[in-house]
């Protein structure tokens, strides 16, 4: 039986490891970007929250290359992503999101490490005071945002149903990652009281990110529906996952509107579950 649709393709079997990679890369990039924003545009009292964001961004990103390498059919050849094993030249294909993403991930990891060290070690902090420090944070922040977004573009640049039908995936994953990163910082604030002055405004930002994410989900679903592949996102498991996504969007808004606010930890866990569920439904739905 052959379907009269445009997609005559096979799933690449990107599953749990890739889901975990998308999740952690998004949270790391989002944490770094929020840390950069807090440092560059926040109040003086926000610096401590910025440092916590940088302290979280690096550990979150170092698991990512491990996940990606293990997912390869030939893990020992991971370096082929960077270097042409036949000629010894660098492999850089800007038109291939996977190639571009590997380079961006590497570059971002360097900046994440520098800011991690700066947040942890006083002499490094002294070294990076002033213009150089700001430059590091700006470049790292841009790379962090790119790492959040490119994973969506990577899926879009294929011929798979849903993925290639939904060009807004890059923006959607970015908005979702920022929301997740805000949730991570809110959880961290339970253990780092010095972040308290900033948490109210991070929760404010989270609500903006959630609204942005909701808009992009709507645009994404419209593009997928227009291509006639919406059904792949709404199987039995898919519907359950969408409910979790919906909860992740709704809870920050509801928590804010209640007279007696919800626990920030509970709110954040629901948001993170939504971030994970969104990636799960997008990754697994079209491949099932």
């Amino acid at each position, binding site marked *: 039986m052959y379907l009269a649709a445009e997609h005559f393709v*096979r799933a690449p079997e990107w599953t749990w490891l890739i889901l975990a990679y998308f999740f952690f890369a998004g949270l790391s990039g989002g944490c770094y970007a929020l840390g950069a924003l807090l440092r560059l545009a926040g109040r003086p009292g926000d*610096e401590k929250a910025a440092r916590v964001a940088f302290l979280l961004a690096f550990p979150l990103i170092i698991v990512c290359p491990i996940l990606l390498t293990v997912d390869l*059919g*030939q893990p020992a*050849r991971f370096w082929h992503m960077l270097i*042409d094993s036949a000629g010894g030249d660098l492999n850089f294909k800007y038109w291939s*999101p996977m190639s571009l993403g590997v380079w961006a991930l590497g570059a971002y990891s360097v900046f994440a490490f520098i800011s991690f060290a700066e947040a942890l070690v006083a002499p490094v902090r002294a070294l990076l005071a002033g213009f150089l420090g700001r430059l590091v944070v700006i470049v790292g922040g841009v790379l962090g945002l790119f790492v959040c977004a490119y994973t*969506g573009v990577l899926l879009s640049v294929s011929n798979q149903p849903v993925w290639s039908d939904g060009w807004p995936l890059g923006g959607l994953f970015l908005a979702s990652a920022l929301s997740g990163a805000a949730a991570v910082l809110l959880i961290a604030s339970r253990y780092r009281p010095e972040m308290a002055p900033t948490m*109210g405004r991070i929760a*404010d930002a989270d609500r903006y990110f959630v609204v942005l994410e909701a808009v992009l989900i709507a645009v994404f679903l419209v593009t997928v529906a227009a291509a006639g592949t919406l059904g792949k996102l709404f199987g039995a498991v898919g519907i359950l996952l969408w409910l979790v996504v919906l909860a992740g969007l709704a809870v920050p808004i509801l928590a804010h509107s209640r007279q007696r606010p919800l626990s920030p930890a509970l709110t954040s866990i629901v948001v993170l579950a939504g971030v994970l569920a969104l990636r799960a439904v997008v990754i697994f739905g079209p491949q099932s």
Partner: protein
Amino acid sequence: MAVKRAGFFTDTSICIGCKACEVACKEWNGLQGNPPDVLLDSYDNTGQLDAENWRHVKFIEHMPASTNQVNQPTSVAGGQAWLMMSDVCKHCQHASCMDVCPTNAIVRTEFDTVYIQQEVCNGCRNCIAACPYDVIGFSQATGTAHKCTLCYDRLQNDLTPACAKACPTQSITFGDVDHLHQLADARLLALQKQGYTKAELYGRDDKVYGGLNNFFLLMDKPEVYGLPNADNAVLPGRNNLPGYLGGLVTGAVALVAGLVAFRRRGESPPPPESAPVPVGVGPSESPAAAEAEAPPPAPPPEHRRRLGRRP
């Protein structure tokens, strides 16, 4: 018999479904094949192209709406109810797999064919996501992607690829693509004169992925054979620009949203650093949290405007 642009012209109108091409391919390339599978009542017992099947004879048991022609087989009805097609990698001029491959394992050879270098491929499977023909398969045994090489080793020794050599009806003709185009044009003309109005060439011109080195004469629309038609034959790279632009716009909007939130004045006075952990997501805006926070002295406006100033 060295060729400049190697390819196959597969004439599906004379394919008899004998699968000699599949067998020859497996024998020459040392492919083990998959465990036997039952595909209902179809004569197709291969199922698909994958790492172990680089040739696949598709059996399209397609009954036309008009039962008159089915019940009264004639030369006109032939090729409508039961279509057969020996499928293979198309060796596209604009190859989706080659575009996205991050390791440059997929290259174009001196014979103008698309080839996966096994010693370079690291098994990322990006090519599988990109191939619009469901051609490339991943081998658990080698941890790499596999597909038809157009018998690269045989081409290097001026030999005809195994499948074309074995085809008893010359449904698969190997040769230089320019020469094959001439053969195909003549065959199409002959079929049209005989009344096969649905016959068409697929991949002969550049409307489908810039032209296919392995192109086909079909007896029905491409989608009937599981092939994207010219309108749907699109490259993965089409989503690069809109994808990144969407990310850029989202990033800009998120940046503004973050700035608005982080630089908000008045309603979110920061508590002293020793204040207890807030109990709500919006501690500064909730009555309970506001009580918990000791309001600090309001910083002067010029102090708040200093960007990047750290304590």
